[in-house]
């Protein structure tokens, strides 16, 4: 254990817990941005600088904007309704389920003997080799992801656009 990891872990978990429990959607969204930043820090700490920057750009820069858009476009629902009985039951069951999952995962992690190599120096993957990987053996995957992005964007436009007869646009 070292101090840097502990700080990063704390940042990640605290922001996530707060985001999950806050009633205000805006607050939740902003706290999630913190959470994603924490993850980016983790990548940096682990030596994957490129991934860290990608995480920061995509999540912190783009997806957070999307979330904010969604929140603003549906702002009549900005505040959560008061907790009802049925909702409380759901919260309790959700916490119980999450705890069970965590228990199982933790047991599995702790009981598994893992061969590790802590001596591996950080920053061992160079931008050059990564680029060669992506444009060489993984080129097909890169292309497919490109197609997937295009198609999903088009699908999103179709879904979000108003109906053909222009009945009602987005508020």
């Amino acid at each position: 254990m070292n101090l840097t990891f502990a700080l990063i872990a704390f940042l990640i978990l605290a922001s996530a817990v707060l985001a999950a429990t806050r009633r205000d959607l805006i607050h939740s969204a902003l706290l999630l941005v913190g959470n994603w930043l924490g993850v980016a820090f983790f990548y940096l700490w682990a030596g994957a600088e490129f991934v860290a920057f990608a995480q920061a750009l995509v999540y912190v820069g783009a997806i957070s904007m999307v979330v904010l858009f969604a929140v603003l476009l549906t702002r009549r629902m900005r505040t959560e309704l008061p907790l009802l009985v049925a909702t409380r039951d759901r919260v309790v069951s959700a916490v119980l389920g999450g705890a069970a999952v965590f228990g199982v995962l933790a047991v599995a992690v702790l009981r598994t003997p893992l061969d590790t190599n802590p001596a591996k120096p950080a920053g061992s993957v160079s931008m050059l080799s990564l680029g060669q990987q992506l444009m060489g053996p993984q080129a097909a995957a890169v292309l497919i992801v490109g197609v997937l992005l295009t198609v999903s964007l088009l699908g999103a436009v179709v879904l979000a656009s108003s109906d053909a007869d222009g009945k009602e646009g987005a508020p």
Partner: protein
Amino acid sequence: MNMLQACLLLSSALFCIGLVTALSRSNTILVLLGIEIMLNAANLNFIAFWRFSPAGSAPATGVIFVLFSIAVAAAEAAVWLALVIALYRHQQNIRLQEATRLKG
């Protein structure tokens, strides 16, 4: 407990927080954010295993996988934004438990 296990426990915890969020909140945006958290937890695992794997294994597989995952997450985000807007337009709110049209 070594560093890898610590990383994995962190990832597990993050995953469970995301799960609880997705299960408990009724706002569709928050449910989707919970799912986003779970995705991040999975990405954490990739990097952890890549970082602490024994020498001689594939050099950058974990990193590349995470890159693709982030790309797919971006596409997913675009789609869920559209879904949320369509849902809102359809039922004038975004409470997920009310979107039960397709029940059996």
